[in-house]
């Protein structure tokens, strides 16, 4: 390390190690991981979300929660914005999850067709 620039580069690399501990992200992506969710395939969804978020450096934390109460719609992924607004995506699979990251977290557009509201219509 011979310059501030070197330090800055190292810091960016190192941030990946600790950013899960830094709370100020724009979005919180929560995967339902109760028995119903796991049985319906929530685990591969969670794994893919974690990989993808890390690879593309999305501004979100990925975490899990228990049963949301709509077991029939599992796997369920909820996205919470900083303003408290939240969107519920249902019947997720790894590929759909990637699209949610791309469009919702990346571009700020809700992927309407995957939401619970779309299914109810």
């Amino acid at each position: 390390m011979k310059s501030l620039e070197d330090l800055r580069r190292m810091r960016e690399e190192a941030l990946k190690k600790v950013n899960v501990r830094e709370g100020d992200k724009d979005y919180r992506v929560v995967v339902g991981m109760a028995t119903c969710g796991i049985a319906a395939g929530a685990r591969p969804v969670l794994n893919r979300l974690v990989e993808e978020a890390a690879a593309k450096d999305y501004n979100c934390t990925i975490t899990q929660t228990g049963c949301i109460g709509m077991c029939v719609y599992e796997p369920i992924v909820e996205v919470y914005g900083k303003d408290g607004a939240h969107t519920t995506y249902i019947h997720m699979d790894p590929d759909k999850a990637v699209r949610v990251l791309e469009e919702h977290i990346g571009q700020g557009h809700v992927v309407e067709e995957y939401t619970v509201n779309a299914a109810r219509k």
Partner: protein
Amino acid sequence: MYRANILCCAGTGCTANRSQEVFDSFNNALKKYELEAEVKVIKTGCFGLCQKGPIVAVYPDRIFYAHVKPEDAERIVAEHLYKGRPVTELQLSDEDLATNETIYDIDKIKFYEKQERIVLRNCGKINPEDIQEYIALGGYAALGKALTQMTPQEVIDEVKASGLRGRGGAGFPTGKKWQFEADQPGDEKYVICNADEGDPGAFMDRSVLEGDPHAVLEGMAIMAYAVGAHLGYIYIRAEYPIAVARLNIAINQARELGLLGKDIFGSGFDFDIEIRLGAGAFVCGEETALIASIEGKRGMPYPKPPFPAVAGVWGKPTSINNVETLANIAQIIDKGAAWYSSIGTETSKGTKVFALGGKIKNTGLVEVPMGTTLREIIYEIGGGCPNNKEFKAVQTGGPSGGCLTELELDTPIDYENLTAAGSMMGSGGMIVLDEDNCMVDVAKFYMEFIADESCGKCTPCRVGTRRLLEMLNKIIEGEGSLELLDEMEQLCHEIQDTALCGLGQTAPNPILSTLHHFRKEYETHVVEKKCPAKVCKKLLDYTIDPDLCKMCSLCARSCPAEAINGVPGKEPYRIHPTKCIKCGNCYNTCRFGAVKME
């Protein structure tokens, strides 16, 4: 990439409570649930709330678990990390007294709410054995800034403007100290980090070194640049094995990255650090004795001047700063003197770390802005005395400090106020005493420590502290008199006036301050031959209340001196006053409260 981190406290307190096993069982449990690729367990430094240790924090959820046992690990992994349901009954929580609700939010828990963590900012947050984590949170940016964008004088001016004062106890302005050394001619100069933390009950520096060693290394490097030194020593006691190990790891990692060594940040500035282990002598925290010890001589103080800034280690200009002082430096350079000096009081800027111990609910490490009152620390953060006992006094400043009572609880803490109140800031030990503590006994505890630790170089300290201890023992054994109190007080003042170093001069403080605040208690000891707190055994009388005695004979059987007579089931037991050796066995064995102690 991990989706969650489990931070497991690996400070000395939690390690003593099996946190290493907890760490291992988390790893095993993650393996069992096939989560090793998603969740990482990390050893971190002290979270501060040692009373509730071992503490484990789960991120990104920011959920803290208290008193985690190795067997709890699997449950936390299965419930929280696999299924996403935090195990509430193991969570660190607080009761909201107003609403009777349980608080789990870590930022709202009383212990943390009033704190402002600058020195401890990374403790409990990063892995101290990984330099990258320190860098990720902004580490070494201040060193880079100082070396590439500031002149040494600008660094000194910044530290001066911040108002930072030495955290080792005396409170000498840090920038001024650096200026003295910088102004000395010659190019062989040294810096020293004083990590010889010796006050009974104090563990601030240990926790910083264990939890965030790079902050201290960075502070030292900045100080070296400012004063023109190229070699620094960390003088640390061998009794801190975890801190020493982490320092060694940290120094090696910093060298590998070129943050220590030649031509740091391409600035042409060379600096390296060596560790010197002390054998744990209290006097070696005194700077001249510390220097002697580093040079391989017997650790004894020598008279000043010359001050270390003029002729220190190897006779060359040397600046000595305490661990906590150095841990502030990088933040000051990074965020600026204006930010730092906006915290604290008129004369004392920034924060201070205190080690809370004794009769207090939340034993642990707290960092508060200067100007916080003792009441806030003891009651709001510390939770007050346990078992509804009444607060009696708080001892601050270690053996050189003194006791403060209820009357001083609302004093805002800063260097001047504590000195005016008859104690001192000291390095930050804070021992709370309740109604069950006898102040003569407390004074004796400290005097034993000091008499033991006196280096022996000067007579007032070597002989004087021994004599003081003998006088205290006389009082405790019921052989004291009012004249003895006066004699003791006079000797205290003589030692203050004549001892060689700071330690000797402050050695009588435990007696003087307890005498000042609790003279009545001393007088009761010497006149009535009673100990109001019922601590001094020789001054207690044991009797058996015949109305309460059930004639069970338990007390008689527990008596090692055969001083209790009676007939089982027929005649109440009696204690023979001259045979009684006042061991307290009967008092502890009686199930009916018939044995009275007064």
